[in-house]
């Protein structure tokens, strides 16, 4: 059980929430928590959210994108206030994680809010002073929908953006979904044997992972996390 410490608007539909959790054991980059909400009549709804923060601190940061028709995400984005109690369970997941001991190149690929666990990997990379080469490909609806843009820009990790609905002024191409060719051109080559972390809506992850295998990357180097949808 935690207390909401602060919230911060990230995008028109996205917000980060920092929860103070006394006794929290800390987390490694890529893990998630289950958030449980309880209505006055005892009805409960639980959803998983990746942890954007990393390390031993007892402050846990989540970043949530609102699905307008959703049950839980609109509450977390529009209604939660500092001082509210939130029930969190975790850290969960031991597979979709990056640890600073891993020294090989890492290619992060995000679709929408799937960037959240990847941001925690970038933070872990920075905090540990790792020299593992990191690169990110980030597919997002419009420039306004980018989570943590400034922080990513300042991290030293090269981030390639794909805008699916609207592009910034002067952008070389029009909006459009990620294609296999674009993917091939934006990730570490096969010869560098990168480890992949692909996260986002199920259809996005499915397409990207299939293309990566077709492009010759070994399936066992590709870790995926599907957010649903």
């Amino acid at each position: 059980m935690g207390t909401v410490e602060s919230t911060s608007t990230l995008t028109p539909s996205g917000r980060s929430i920092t929860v103070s959790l006394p006794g929290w054991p800390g987390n490694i980059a890529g893990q998630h928590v289950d958030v449980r909400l309880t209505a006055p009549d005892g009805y409960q709804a639980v959803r998983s959210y990746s942890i954007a923060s990393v390390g031993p601190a007892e402050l846990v940061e989540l970043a949530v994108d609102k699905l307008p028709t959703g049950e839980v995400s609109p509450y977390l984005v529009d209604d939660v206030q500092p001082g509210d109690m939130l029930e969190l369970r975790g850290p969960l997941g031991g597979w979709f994680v990056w640890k600073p001991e891993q020294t090989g190149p890492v290619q992060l690929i995000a679709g929408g809010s799937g960037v959240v666990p990847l941001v925690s990997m970038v933070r872990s990379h920075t905090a540990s002073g790792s020299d593992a080469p990191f690169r990110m490909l980030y597919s997002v609806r419009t420039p306004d929908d980018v989570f943590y843009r400034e922080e990513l820009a300042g991290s030293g990790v090269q981030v390639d953006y794909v805008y699916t609905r609207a592009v910034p002024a002067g952008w070389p191409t029009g909006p459009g979904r990620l294609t296999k060719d674009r993917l091939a051109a934006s990730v570490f080559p096969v010869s560098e044997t990168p480890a992949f972390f692909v996260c986002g809506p199920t259809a996005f992850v499915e397409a990207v992972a299939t293309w990566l295998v077709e492009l010759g990357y070994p399936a066992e180097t590709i870790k995926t996390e599907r957010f649903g949808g």
Partner: protein
Amino acid sequence: MTIFTRGFSGRGRDNNPDLPPGQYLTEDFPVLSAGPTPEIATEDWQFTISTETKRYSWTWEQFMALPIEEVGTDIHCVTRWSKLGTSWRGVSLDTLFADVDTSYEFTMAHSYGGYTTNVPLEDLLDGKAWIAFEFDGEPLHPEHGGPARLLVPHLYFWKSAKWVRGLEMLPQDEPGFWEQNGYHMYGDPWQEERYW
């Protein structure tokens, strides 16, 4: 003690006795996998059961010649969606184990792509589990584990190993892939056995 969430009223009241605790109903068929979807041609497909002494195996053709059952069942994913009344076709594990001789009581399911999950043998027998190759009247899509997946609907759905290629008999219970990564050894949805 229950702590109410200020300002949260919730939407769905899935007051459905068929829904295990903490699950919600979905009409879609979401996907939980740890990596890319393997593509396996039925010509290359094989299913094996290996025991302390012997290896039993079936090609796709041999497998399709076995008695096929229609299965109507509810499925419950650890990520909290449930689908009620799904329809499958497959071969019962009772059929596959009919001539198998083993004194071991645990199994490890192995999949194309390298995934594993552990299931006690008694949870696979007596009409409780199938190797399914059809969902909703269509060949099982690779994304959902085609050409064939294990179907053990009374446990959380990660136990229903996608792209299954065999069962290994074990003298004692050992954790499979998801179990080593934080999921429960047994996984009963009615007891909410999600995580360790």
